[in-house]
């Protein structure tokens, strides 16, 4: 067993570093560091995605035949770590990590040919139409209905918590196409053009003041039958496949490590009156550091298993559960550290576009907002309670 990289892997790391140094501008870095939403604003993401696309590095997890770079699991890890350490903007996972893999697995050849290149280039921006008012983590209870009329479905209903629906031009949605005794049956996976007549988007403002999520209404929206993915009534299979990617396919510890590094920088700086000199802050940072190291090692073991062609096992819920809790611990200690500077509430967005001088240093404005938004970590993508249920059922056999 070895944690160290081979000479080839070190060469690859240098290559990634050189690329980032050449293509990630200081403006992008600053904007990205002031980004407090889960997804970066399009003006931050688009130039970075374009740079990655030119190099063929936009979708590390995709097979080469669909435009992936054909990396080993370790190379993916190195790439994710270097991007996170440099503070590069995070690409939206909706296309690359979520609908992309579903299309590769269940889509028709026309769907693959049309959508996959547009995901890579960033030409299409996707949002996810899963949750509905009243359904929450009980996704199978969804009610949005699609009724077939000739070569179209007519969609009526509403979706909620739709992240960046207001920036997206396409949605992948789970809709009910028939009523079956088992709720999971009769659900279909549809691709919806957001420019279709009958779609209304209502912004939902978060406690931080951010506009990340929306409610989306469908009033007689026509969707071509060719936009059905997989079989009608078998959408649950696609949806579950996608959720597995959402939970376990991600590598979280490099991002968490970067977030912790930023907090540690803050603790060492005058911005926090050198909070690190207080033993309770120093030990709290060590505690979180050890949580990150543990998660990192668990993720690396999954990568090692994947690399030798094994199934990682039912560990994805463990990783999701811990990653979301650690994320919150990091943002919480950030708030503790800045003391009374936490009193200032800046609700204007995006922070990187503000051009007046705030009453506290710019870097501190993001601390509280990030903490507030981070509370959603243990709620979205299957709440922590749902993850514990999954562990109890699938791992412990309860």
């Amino acid at each position, binding site marked *: 067993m070895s944690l160290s990289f081979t000479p080839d892997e070190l060469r690859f790391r240098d290559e990634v570093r050189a690329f980032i140094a050449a293509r990630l501008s200081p403006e992008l870095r600053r904007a990205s560091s002031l980004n407090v939403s889960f997804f970066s604003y399009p003006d931050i993401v688009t130039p970075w995605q374009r740079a990655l696309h030119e190099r063929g590095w936009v979708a590390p997890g995709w097979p080469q035949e669909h435009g992936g770079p054909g990396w080993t699991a370790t190379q993916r890890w190195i790439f994710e770590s270097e991007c996170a350490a440099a503070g590069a903007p995070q690409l939206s996972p909706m296309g690359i990590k979520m609908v992309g893999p579903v299309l590769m697995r269940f889509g028709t050849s026309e769907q693959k040919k049309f959508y996959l290149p547009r995901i890579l280039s960033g030409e299409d921006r996707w949002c996810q139409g899963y949750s509905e008012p009243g359904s929450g983590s009980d996704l199978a209870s969804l009610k949005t209905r699609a009724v077939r009329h000739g070569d179209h479905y007519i969609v009526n209903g509403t979706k909620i918590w739709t992240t960046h629906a207001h920036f997206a031009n396409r949605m992948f949605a789970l809709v009910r196409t028939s009523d079956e005794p088992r709720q999971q049956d009769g659900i279909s996976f549809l691709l919806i053009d957001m420019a279709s007549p009958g779609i209304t988007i209502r912004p939902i403002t978060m406690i931080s003041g951010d506009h990340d999520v929306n409610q989306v209404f469908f009033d007689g929206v026509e969707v071509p039958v060719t936009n059905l993915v997989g079989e009608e009534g078998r959408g649950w299979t696609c949806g579950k496949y996608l959720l597995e990617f959402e939970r376990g396919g991600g590598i979280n510890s490099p991002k968490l490590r970067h977030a912790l590094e930023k907090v540690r920088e803050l603790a060492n700086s005058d911005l926090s009156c050198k909070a690190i000199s207080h033993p309770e802050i120093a030990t709290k*940072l060590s505690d979180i550091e*050890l949580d990150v190291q543990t998660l990192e090692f668990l993720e690396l073991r999954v990568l090692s298993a994947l690399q*030798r062609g094994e199934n990682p096992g039912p560990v994805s819920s463990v990783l999701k559960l811990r990653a979301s809790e650690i994320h919150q611990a990091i943002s919480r200690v950030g708030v503790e550290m800045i003391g009374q500077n936490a009193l200032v509430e800046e609700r204007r967005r995006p922070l990187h576009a503000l051009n007046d001088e705030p009453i506290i240093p710019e870097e501190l404005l993001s601390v509280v907002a990030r903490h507030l938004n981070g509370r959603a970590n243990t709620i979205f993508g299957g709440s922590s309670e749902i993850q*514990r249920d999954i562990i109890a059922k699938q791992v412990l056999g309860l």
Partner: protein
Amino acid sequence: MDLTPSEAQRMLRHSAERFIAEHYDQAARRHAMQDPMGFKRENWRKLADLGWLGLPFPEEVGGFGGGPVEVAILMEEFGRGLATEPYLSTVLLAGTLIAECGTQEQQMVLLPAIINGERLLSFAHYESDARAGLSEIHTVAQADNQGWMLHGRKMAVLDAVSADVHMVSARLPDVQGAGLALFLVPKDAAGVRLRDAPRLGGGRVAELTFERTLLPPDARLGTGGDVLPAIEGVVDRAIAALCAEAAGMMRSMFDATLDYTKVRKQFDRPLAANQVIRHRLADMYVQCEEARAMAARAALPVGADSDSTQRSLAASGAKVKVGRCARNVAEQAVQLHGAMGVTDELDLGLYFKRLLVFEALFGSVDYHLQRHAKLFGNSRSE
């Protein structure tokens, strides 16, 4: 980067699992506790036959040439079975110190005797609370024309009653700047007093006092220099090994709790049918996985040739993380067993007590958290 266990490591785990399953059931554990030595000597001979007593030693002295990763594998399985053999005292502490600091002659005499199971050693170091650190030593060894004269008192000496030789740390007031030295003290040397007691959860522990104990000139381990850095390294590696052992104990407690909550019925349904119980079990499972990962991770940078700051960070870090997880898993396991959890009839209590021993040995969670924070700050400012 590859965290795949090697074929040899897989085989070692497999045979350790089998050995523990065959030799460490409830009756055997209770039996071992009644033994005045705290363990069964025939088990020690079996460990020798399997080659495990030589695991961390170089092949030149008859060892197996293994490292902390192999030691962790073995210790995790020892933990699952709650083995009480003095592997930590004889092999990981005293034995490793001989391999690192001993003269050629001391190594050639003592290491083969350890490896073949003939000779047992204790490591007598701490004199006050482990929270004070490893350097708080007041025992003195004065040079005498016939050799050395040892004076002092050691506490919480593991497995002293079964040891043939005690390895004792002492200051050398006559030797300028020499710091700490280690001495090999035969159990029957004049002026050695041993007060032995059962150790929490199995095994033995003792207080050792040395009153004008006369030792020959070659009783000193090695020929000179301060041994504190070597002790620090050996203790860091021992901590990593103990973390693996604790992860094994946690797993046994968790498995027992999972089985129990599936079977035990209250209000006409199994305890595990309640969401609050299921979630607690899920958290315990997560903590078992975390402890196991952190123990495995700690084994990688604690090797003898590693950078001392990285080694200490890994050991202290694992002690903190595994310690926190261990406490929660142990306390929840007892809680979920209800009143049965606090009876002496189940082995659960033995595991609970042994995890308390893990917490108390070589410094608490808080001690190591502070050590980690300090080292982490230092290593970053370099």
